[in-house]
């Protein structure tokens, strides 16, 4: 019986072979919303995963049904709502003009803010959701902290003086497991939907600059989201790992690996979360699975976004009413 070998097609898994004390813990991973599970339910989930059969009938590498809708909030530059099972995320992007950072005078930048609202669970009331919000925001900063994710030079208006700052605000409305993946999908969809007004810099004789906004409200620049990565979270349950874990499955898992993958399969960031430990073989296997799953996820997300955009401005907006 081998540890860390997540081959498909069953393999030998002895029924009592899982280490009982490691797996039966209270269901709280990080500071996320907790769920109470009984021993019997945990055994059921763990043994099912070893056989590549999860509680809702999915395989270990299947995502739940994802609903994506863009342009949900109208007074933003771009917005998106993503619903993955019971996880509901709303992202709004606002473009504002500001001064570039000193060390990067020719580029604009992105600012992330994550608000874990009390809608998801009463524990997030007041300042309760701040810890989780900061953790997610820091992860987002890290995965976007490379030259190729977003073309920041296109956000520059005039070097050292004016640039566009994109404030990406994530609102967590409901938490049903797998927060990072959903948030990243929503951020990508919102950036795809973002329309930044075109500006011209006019210089008069004294040298003072004037910024002119174009009159046509539809004259705007779009960001290219080809290289925006998506996070794939792989949770280790027993000897196998699963993609897109529900809250109950997260409660049975001690360690997870967050892999941020671009559409070409390039890994931009990797992070291990959770109280337990992972051995190096598992990490490599999980990373390979993450790359494989990530490419498929990107392809389907791109096709959905293009299909939605092809419906044009006359499409019926559903939002929360559907």
């Amino acid at each position, binding site marked *: 019986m081998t540890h860390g070998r997540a081959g498909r097609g069953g393999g030998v898994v002895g029924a009592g072979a899982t280490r009982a004390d490691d797996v039966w813990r209270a269901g709280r991973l990080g500071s996320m919303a907790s769920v109470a599970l009984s021993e019997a339910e945990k055994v059921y989930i763990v043994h099912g995963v070893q056989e590549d059969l999860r509680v809702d009938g999915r395989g270990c590498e299947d995502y739940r049904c994802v609903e994506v809708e863009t342009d949900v*909030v109208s007074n933003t530059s771009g917005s998106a709502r993503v619903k993955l099972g019971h996880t509901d995320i709303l992202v709004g992007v606002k473009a504002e003009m500001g001064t570039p950072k000193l060390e990067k005078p020719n580029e604009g930048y992105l600012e992330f803010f994550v*608000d874990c609202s009390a809608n998801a669970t009463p524990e997030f009331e007041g300042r309760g959701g701040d810890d989780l919000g900061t953790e997610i925001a820091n992860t987002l900063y890290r995965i976007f902290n490379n030259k190729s994710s977003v073309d920041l030079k296109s956000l520059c208006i005039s070097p050292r003086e004016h640039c566009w700052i994109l404030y990406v605000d994530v609102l967590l409305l409901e938490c049903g497991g797998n927060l990072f993946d959903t948030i990243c999908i929503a951020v990508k969809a919102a950036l795809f939907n973002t329309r930044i007004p075109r500006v011209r810099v006019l210089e008069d004789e004294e040298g003072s600059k004037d910024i002119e906004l174009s009159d046509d409200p539809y004259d705007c620049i779009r960001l290219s989201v080809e290289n925006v990565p998506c996070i794939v979270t792989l949770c280790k349950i027993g000897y196998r790992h699963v993609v897109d874990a529900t809250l109950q499955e997260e409660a049975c898992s001690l360690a997870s690996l967050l892999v941020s993958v671009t559409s070409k399969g390039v890994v931009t960031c990797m992070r291990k979360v959770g109280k337990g430990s992972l051995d190096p073989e598992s990490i490599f296997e999980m990373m390979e699975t993450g790359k494989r799953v990530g490419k498929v996820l990107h392809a389907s997300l791109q096709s959905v976004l293009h299909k939605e955009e092809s419906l044009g401005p006359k499409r019926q907006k559903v939002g*929360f009413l559907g």
Partner: protein
Amino acid sequence: MAGLELLSDQGYRVDGRRSGELRKIQARMGVFAQADGSAYIEQGNTKALAVVYGPHEIRGSRARALPDRALVNCQYSSATFSTGERKRRPHGDRKSCEMGLHLRQTFEAAILTQLHPRSQIDIYVQVLQADGGTYAACVNAATLAVLDAGIPMRDFVCACSAGFVDNTALADLSHVEEAAGGPQLALALLPASGQIALLEMDARLHEDHLEQVLEAAARAARDVHTVLDRVVRQHVREASILLGD
């Protein structure tokens, strides 16, 4: 503001409504499956979500438990992208705390708290897009959410805002009308009995005009009640179809 008149000579407002007309209201109950009760409402361009948890055991210090009734706890939060200019903090600032207190006062008057002693009912309201009348939208959404959670209430709580321009009372103010600086009245009403749960007025208004504005707000709140009633009946009908009755 040059060139922007809130009420034209023919009696039309900036967005084309008449003085007593409400914006289009669309609402849905049961938006989130994991909460005890949830609802979403759109009043024109103002969008609000309300979620209710409870009645459950008091969280935090047990000393706050009331021996004869339930504790109603409200939080008002508006998303950072909800207003035209980006807000720094979604909740915790003075305005949000004040709105939370107003909501609490409103719902303590309507919910039958004596039926759940020593417990707590949490009402969380989130404004996704603010275009005037946010308090009213929050109260309406919270009413639907409390009904969705099955918590017994004395009556619906319907709210509406009203203003006064050119000797005419305007109902359901949008952001442009609120920002113009005239008197604004926010009213939360229990329609069946006509009892007022919350009444708040800003800016100066001559007392001779108060009755006119109050009447306009009350009439608008009753119109909101008609819409919400229809939404609730539709929701119950759908739910009973799913159950196979």
